């Protein structure tokens, strides 16, 4: 019903700065799509072009099959929730919610019914006669959400809606928004969402699919699991996951049983990795190993323990392996069981979960290329 299609979308700002470099993205009807990336990667710019708040310099935005490039925001069938709520400060919550409907000259009864329903869903009934300045951050954000909901838009746009809230509230609002999305979907209402965030936890927990961006380009679009397990490139690998994936520059040698060399040390990656690797991929590469997949091993990479952060059930160990540092997450039991008398331990990656990236471009060259 309300599919969102973005075709070769470009943005050049007035100062000739090219913020978006021809991106393509399809968001299915009812899909929760998260745009994630570091600050300044043009997430907001993209979202604002979808909304119509920013002119489109090139390409097309289609909502429900209709090209909306030249439509004003109010005619695109979208609703938007802003980071700092953007409630109208001189209007009561009730009027904030109904502003859009009043502009459409809806009947009084209709407006009242819609307001009451949205207020019930978001549990803001007691706040209806307050002014925005009399609301807490969480309440204000719920009102902002209500203002979007009441319009029954085809596409919901969110621009970092939770980043002004404290951690606890953020967690509960996260659940509230995903629940709301599921509910709309179950009721057969339009519920396509584009949600912008720089927070990977939000991205991973909320998105049906995630679009990772960097400097105005899309690095990968995939569901959270794929993104985590099969990152398309070193950027996505480093961006998703916490603590960050270890990305180590070294040399790849050997045939079907490849060996990764760094400094004077080496790790065997095993024949399974050999089969996954792109044919002929040898020489300078970057090896990616998640801290969770680096475990103590007798014939691994030896490193001096620099720091060990005790987190309760697990210990985050920082190792100095000469050229570079590694981070490994061990269970408390694993850590206690280690012989740490020399101050050094040896760790090896679970090769089945490791990735090899091309040194230039950072493309993942270990994604089952044999097939």
């Amino acid at each position, binding site marked *: 019903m309300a599919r969102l299609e973005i075709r070769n979308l470009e943005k050049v700002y007035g100062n000739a700065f090219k913020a978006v470099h021809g991106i393509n993205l399809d968001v299915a009807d009812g899909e929760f799509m998260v745009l994630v990336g570091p600050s300044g990667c043009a997430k907001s710019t993209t979202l604002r072009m979808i909304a119509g708040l920013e002119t489109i310099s090139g390409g097309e935005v289609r909502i429900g099959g209709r090209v909306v490039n030249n439509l004003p925001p109010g005619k695109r069938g979208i609703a938007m929730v802003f980071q700092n709520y953007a409630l109208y400060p001189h209007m009561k919550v009730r009027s904030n919610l109904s502003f859009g409907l009043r*502009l459409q000259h809806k009947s009084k009864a209709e407006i009242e019914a819609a307001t009451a329903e949205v207020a019930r869903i978001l549990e803001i009934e007691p706040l209806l006669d307050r002014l925005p300045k009399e609301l807490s951050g969480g309440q204000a954000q719920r009102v902002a959400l209500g203002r979007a909901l009441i319009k029954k838009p085809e596409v919901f746009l969110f621009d970092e809606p939770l980043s002004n809230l404290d951690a606890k509230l953020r967690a509960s609002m996260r659940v509230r928004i995903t629940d709301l999305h599921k509910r709309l979907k179950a009721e057969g209402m339009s519920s396509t969402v584009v949600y912008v965030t720089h927070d990977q936890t939000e991205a991973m927990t909320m998105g049906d699919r995630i679009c990772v961006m960097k400097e105005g380009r899309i690095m990968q679009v995939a569901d959270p699991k794929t993104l985590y397990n099969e990152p398309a490139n070193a950027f996505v690998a480093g961006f998703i996951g916490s603590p960050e994936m270890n990305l180590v520059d070294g040399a790849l040698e050997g045939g079907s049983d490849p060996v990764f060399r760094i400094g004077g040390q080496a790790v065997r990656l095993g024949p399974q990795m050999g089969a996954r690797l792109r044919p002929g991929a040898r020489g300078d590469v970057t090896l990616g190993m998640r801290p969770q997949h680096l475990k103590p091993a007798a014939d691994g990479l030896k490193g001096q323990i620099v720091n060990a952060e005790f987190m309760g059930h697990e210990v985050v160990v920082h190792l100095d392996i000469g050229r570079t540092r590694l981070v490994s997450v061990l269970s408390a039991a694993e850590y206690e069981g280690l012989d740490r008398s020399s101050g050094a331990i040896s760790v090896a990656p679970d090769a089945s979960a490791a990735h090899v990236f091309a040194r230039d471009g950072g493309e993942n060259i270990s994604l089952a290329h044999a097939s």
Partner: protein
Amino acid sequence: MTMIATETAPVATTDTTAVDRRRAQISAMVRYTLLFGVGLLMLYPLIWLVGASFKTNNEIFGSIGFIPENPTLEGYRQGWETSTPYTFGRFFWNTFLIILPKTIFTAISCALVAYGFARFEFPGKKILFASLIATLLLPNVVTRIPQYILFRDLGWLDTYLPLWVPSAFAGDAFFVFMLVQFLRAIPRDMEEAARVDGANTFQTLIYIVVPLLMPALISVALFQFMWTMNDFLGPLIYISSVEKFPVSLALKLSIDTTEAFEWNRILAMSVLALLPALVVFFIAQKYFIEGISAGGVKG
């Protein structure tokens, strides 16, 4: 002093605490006496004016005290009657006829122009804004004569049109500048939210920008009110028939026409002329101050 007193209080004995408190009291007393004295000094001419308006004509120059010996309303009664066929009521009404359109149209036109400059990109914007600021720097006298000739050719002499029509076209660059600065400090998100809600540019202006701009608009209206009330040169140049005189000119009139100046009448009417501005100022004081401190907008 007070700071030191409170900081040392916990360790000091009760005796020294009492001494410190005493010292703080004295210092406060000195400060307030000083401030009161200076304040009084600045206000004295005004107080004298009010006092003198109740004196007889002879007494006014007899003493510098401000309390009249035999308070009388003679100055007000005679001053109100004036030496012309019209009472001062007529002159107040004339002033009102100038102020009303001028203030209203200033607020409307300046809001429109400021909205344009602060929120839209259009060709030549930089040059236009620069010339707006340039008119701010231009001394008023420079434009007096060309303006006079223009209005004469339009046949507007001895009407109120030259006094308020320029303001209806955002002629007061200062106000436009003030509103632009105020608008720049207001985040655009609210307006963007309104556009997403389906408001067009004009609806956004009316329903969102104007309410947000209200404190600044009230300041603009107040300034315009007071300046117009006090404007002497404008009416002097363009208004020639006595029946059209505003208060500022009428005050001067009482000086011209009487040979022995009836100072008590002039002073009494001056007090009356002060009142509207004073009353309006105190009523709108809250918004006025919000308006001048333009940065104080909650995001």
